[in-house]
């Protein structure tokens, strides 16, 4: 199939207007407003979604560039009835206040834990090679692309650690 994009497992045709960002496509055209717009310039991380397993800022990419791609948004990670482990941990640890950065944080953290599992290094890693560990400093570094003006960082780190340790 051509000119389609999979969002949370459902196929959609791409928008006509080539100017439409992936972010506006999911929010406006599909009504999936869980993905947030905080800056529209790749500066805040509120719009983070997972494309083919990799986290990206959906405001920085045009929807038409994603022919054939598989996109997961916050709605694809869990629902109020069946939340993901990270979603539950964010509630338990109060990893948010206003909640506006939160879907982005959770999408980002979901993909970020996979990056550590894949042993991709970060600035906080001791070495560029070998096994990567889920330390507080690794989480802080790797989550620094997701701003939280409410200042919930300490609880965000606690929530992510909790899930990482459970699944370890």
């Amino acid at each position, binding site marked *: 199939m051509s000119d389609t994009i999979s969002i949370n497992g459902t196929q959609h045709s791409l928008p006509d207007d080539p100017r439409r960002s992936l972010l506006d496509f999911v929010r406006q055209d599909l009504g999936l407003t869980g993905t947030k717009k905080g800056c529209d*310039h790749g500066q805040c991380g509120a719009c983070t979604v997972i494309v083919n397993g990799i986290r990206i800022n959906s405001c920085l990419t045009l929807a038409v560039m994603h022919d054939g791609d598989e996109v997961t948004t916050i709605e694809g990670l869990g629902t109020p009835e069946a939340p993901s482990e990270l979603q539950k941990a964010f509630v338990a640890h109060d990893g948010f206040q206003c909640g506006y950065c939160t879907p982005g944080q959770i999408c980002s953290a979901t993909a970020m834990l996979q990056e550590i599992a894949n042993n991709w290094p970060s600035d906080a890693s001791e070495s560029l090679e070998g096994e990567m560990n889920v330390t507080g400093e690794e989480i802080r570094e790797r989550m620094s692309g997701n701003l939280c003006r409410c200042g919930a*960082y300490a609880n965000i780190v606690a929530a992510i650690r909790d899930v990482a340790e459970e699944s370890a």
Partner: protein
Amino acid sequence: MTVHFKQDKPEQSNRLDGMKQGVLGKGVSRLEGLAKVTGTAPYAAEYPVEGCAEGVLVTSTITRGEVVGLDKDAVLAMPGVLAVIDDSRLTTRPAQGTANEAPKQGPKTISYWGQPIALVVAETFEQARDAAKHLTVKYREEEGAPVDPQAVETEEKDGTVRQGDLAHAMAEAAHSVDVTFTTRGHASAAMEPHAAIAEWDGDKLTVHASLQMLNYNISELADALGVEEDDVRLISRFVGGGFGSKLGISEEVVAAAIAAKDLARPVRVVMSRQQVFQCIMRRSETTQRLRLAADEDGKLTGFGHHAVVSNLPGEVFAEPVLQSSHFLYSGENRELMLEVARIHRMTAGSVRAPGEAVGMPALEGAMDVLAEKVGIDPVELRLKNIPEQDPEEGLPFSSNKLAECLKQGAEAFGWDSGPRKPRQHQDGEWWVGTGMASAARAHSISEARAKVTLKSDGTALVETDMTDIGTGTYTILAQIAGEMLGLEPNKVLVELGDTRHPRGSGSGGSWGAASTGSAVYVACKAIREDLAARVGVEETALELSQGKTSAGKSLIDLLGGEDIAREGHYEPGDIKDDYTAAGFGAFFAQVRVNRYTGETRVDRMLGAFGFGRVLNHKTARSQCLGGITWSIGVALTEALEFDPRDGHLVNCDLAEYHVPVNRDVPELDVLMVEERDAAASPIQAKGIGELGMCGGAAAIANAIYNASGARIFDYPMTPDHVLKAMPD
């Protein structure tokens, strides 16, 4: 039925602690939490509205003057464009908090760079954005608008205090400090940009907006449009952060309402991040002179704090820098004065903790200098200077937990009270050191209404137009009602953010929880009276928990198929005038300063706070964490940069205005020093949304000095400042 309670006296009966449900104060997880983490909580721009057109604001590229022409036809010919709106009712500045009337209107007259001058509406966002960019505007510019606060005459604000003879006290003092601090402008930078969807049904207007104080915003909007309040409905169920920036009605709300009426279809207007920076609020920069005179032992004999701030002509708001300086420390000879410079930069207004957010970092920096001169431990210096009563007004404190916070905080942090000298600890290329500061934030409380219904099915409903801006309102109101009525919080449905409900207090100045919480308390007390009569006991003897009386009778039976509804109306009376009320606390920080680059990293930080009753341990702690995080921004990174030629805000986005990111924030400790402040509110609570950033930056600044020997008087303490001040 409305029950009115005006509080003239402290609430000593302490009813809440006598209740049996045992849920108040507990760390209950946010009731709306799952909606937020799954992305199903709708924010202002996210309501599905059939046939919604999209509006984009056009803003001024001159500082002062007139719009003399808009080339509407050219953009109306562009694809999808529906209208170019330059109605004289468009607002050109945000309303200040609690304004209750329209802010400045008339988009043709320009008084700052970035001011909204028109709205372009199109079928899609992309079309509107493109057209807005292409709208040609002709200006008649009025040159020479002053934009530098240092270069203009200042006006003195009311409230200057002159007590005794400060100059004499300074001359006679065994130890004195006379220093000048500067702080830079700050932006609220709430993560959700300002947004509104307006829809008319005949003469009835409904607006989904992102606002903190619907109880004021409704009159501000009605006034701006020239319509009756009764014809306006505002909805803000979820607000993606406010921090002062959404206190008053903002420009996009009025613009959306006017456009929707003109086009007879719904219109959405979302500000771009750059617009949020440039045409909402800035915290004023400040210049602050601190004069402290002390005797041999460090007891203050004189206290001087003089601040200069700025704002646009015609704005009443002036950053209340001296708010807590009036009462925090003793010193019989006093001089406090606030001045305002009138300049043509964007509107200055409330940004989280207006006043103390910048006043306390300066005062507490000066106290550190004094402690060094006297040669005593900085914690000791504060302890010595806690006044018995308000040193200016002579009023008693409603409560003052400063000493406890200082002592308990120092102990929990492991504060070394021995002699202090800079540059004692080195770790590779880093100097490591510690610093501390007091915290203080004046307490505010306001009138508020809330309706509580105890339903025949044994659940409760709380309704008020109060907002939850991330502060935890949904949860704490359910806890208060649950405690009073003997219900688990998940049996209490809280409906907020809709002007169809009774007027709450709104969220601002840390007053929401205590004010609206008190209205819920008053309503619940009245419901309890009704229930007590049914049981045949005094209300004070009625014990309720888990939906039953202590005799085992269920609420459902007692209600017999009927609801009981009461509207609580709380009003602060004489308690407002009879006491000086504030939240107090202490900050402790350990930092490392790079000896070669001047970079500062915060290793750990602790805040100890006393703010009355803790309503929810988890959400209160989060408020403290947020405040401490902002303290790190004030200390190290946040500064608005204005173009000296035209006063426009240059770093108007999140890449150039540096809010703390995750890695800037280490593990933080919060100590809540529990107390009941009976004169603060009927529920004996004060606010905690702001206290956590009132002084924390000074703990970091003082730690920078202790670590590296760099004594800096300008916030934020970026590497260039640190390097310049660092001894060789």
